[in-house]
């Protein structure tokens, strides 16, 4: 069977991201999974255990300052060379900022079609995408070149299939043009130990109704009790209650967790666009007419400052 290249998405702090495990699980249906690690020195070594556990038969590693010191261009160059050499059955990347950017450059280099925000991919290359804020389901196909696909996090249930991957080092041959955008600093901002927003199976979000930044502790507390990530509506972010990288909606992150909890969020289309494909939705809002209740599987009309602390207490009791 042909190789399927999975471009690994990982963080320094938490290692391999869940979407990578989803891609490996998907890749096993399409061929023989090979993981591609494009990162700083030692990245492949640190990640190989997890990648093998989910079925990577091979790991291609391109590491070091030449890769890591610049925005995505050198990564795309290395990947294009690899694709030309191994002629994979498909190339999978994460449907997140960097994955889409690498895929964008690869598509131009190879004059190859690209499909983003894919939630399922058949063996014949037919992809399923969700468009227009979850309201339209699209079947599509790359018609020139190989299936070059970015997979949306939380689309596939990752299952282990242990393998012992051999590591192959790739020569990095980035051109001067690849090195035009230099990364001079990386700054981590507080997130604590919570799961990453787009990958979390539970997301608890706060909106304008939370009232101020300090009150977001209430949202965080419920998120922690449910093992979830914290999100925020645009209104809450614009009001300075919570940082922008946690914004869920049309101009923010799209999330699709098992459980979405909306606190003090009215449910404007801007917000719904980012969360309405969540499996189960619950909402607390003092306005009985809030549109969020049209989506909610369970809604509580009431004061979130009474309902949420009581819910938190009840969860603690049951633990």
């Amino acid at each position, binding site marked *: 069977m042909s190789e399927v290249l999975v471009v690994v998405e990982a963080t320094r702090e938490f290692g391999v991201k869940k979407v990578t495990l989803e891609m490996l699980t998907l890749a096993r249906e399409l061929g023989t999974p090979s993981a591609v690690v494009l990162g700083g020195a030692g990245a492949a070594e640190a990640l190989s255990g997890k990648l093998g556990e989910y079925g990577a038969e091979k790991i291609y590693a391109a590491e070091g300052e030449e890769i890591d010191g610049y925005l995505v261009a050198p990564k795309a160059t290395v990947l294009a060379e690899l694709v030309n050499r191994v002629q994979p059955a498909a190339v999978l990347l994460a449907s997140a900022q960097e994955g889409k950017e690498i895929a964008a450059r690869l598509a131009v280099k190879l004059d190859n079609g690209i499909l983003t925000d894919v939630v399922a991919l058949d063996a014949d290359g037919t992809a399923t995408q969700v468009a227009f804020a979850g309201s339209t389901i699209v079947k599509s196909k790359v018609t020139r070149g190989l299936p070059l696909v970015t997979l949306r996090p939380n689309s596939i249930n990752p299952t282990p299939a242990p393998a012992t991957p051999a590591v192959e080092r790739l020569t990095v041959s980035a051109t001067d043009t690849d090195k035009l955008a230099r990364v001079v600093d990386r700054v981590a901002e507080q997130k604590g130990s919570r799961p990453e927003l787009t990958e979390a199976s539970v997301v608890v979000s706060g909106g304008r109704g939370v009232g101020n930044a300090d009150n977001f502790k209430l949202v965080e507390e419920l998120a922690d009790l449910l093992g979830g990530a914290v999100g925020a509506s645009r209104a809450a972010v614009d009001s300075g209650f919570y940082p922008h990288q946690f914004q869920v909606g049309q101009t923010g992150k*799209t999330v699709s967790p098992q459980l979405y909890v909306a606190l003090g969020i009215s449910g404007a289309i801007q917000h719904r*666009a980012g969360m309405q494909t969540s499996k189960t939705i619950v909402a607390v809002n003092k306005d009985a007419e809030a549109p969020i209740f049209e989506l909610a599987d*369970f809604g509580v009309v009431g004061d979130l400052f009474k309902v949420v602390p009581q819910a938190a207490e009840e969860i603690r009791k049951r633990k």
Partner: protein
Amino acid sequence: MNIVVLVKQVPDSGADRNLRTDDNTVDRGSANNVINEMDEYAIEEALKIKEAHGGEVTILTMGPDRATESIRKALSMGPDKAVHVVDDALHGSCAVATSKVLAAALGQLNADLVICGAESTDGRVQVMPHMIAERLGVAALTGARKLTVDGATLTVERQTEEGYEVVTASTPAVVSVWDTINEPRYPSFKGIMAAKKKPVQTLSLGDLGVAPTEVGFDGATSAVLEHTKRPPRSGGAKITDEGDGGVKLVEFLATEKFV
């Protein structure tokens, strides 16, 4: 500094949006079409740079005739002129072909800086800045929440999952921006009147040296096979808190095995 801002006309994300049943493209005919929201932040950033450093701001749009409405709207914020790439053969173009056309147009405009929104609200594909930069052989500084211009040196704070990266490059370059970067101005009455007289140059594929077979359905690198509307969600149980709303909420979560 010669700045070009990419502006896309999209169907209003606040209304019902559809794909056409005849050719699977975005239905622009029956929709209320507006400037892609993120592009307004790109225009604002360009105007701020012009105000601080001098230069000229040009709007570049690829789209059908009716995209003129969005071009005039963009000009009313303050840019100097616009270029509209319009050609019937463009209908049905994929992202790869679109980037080829935009790169060809940018090649004629001699821009020091290209600014665009990080993504459009219709496709949300987020690939255009890097595709264009790849074709032009220039730097792409994408996902900016802050942009600083110092002579020919550009520095951006790039929003990431973990925090942000500081990324730097020299002009010429492509920069894409998120909506945290600024607060776009509203067009003034004077701006709206002035926009009517600002020059809008139209370019065809022939003007750009791109063959019709390289774009549209003929040149597409991917195809939509079919599409269906997802049934709208229907609300479930809704209770009014009578002092036990929190407990009831947890009871629901327990039946769904979340606690």
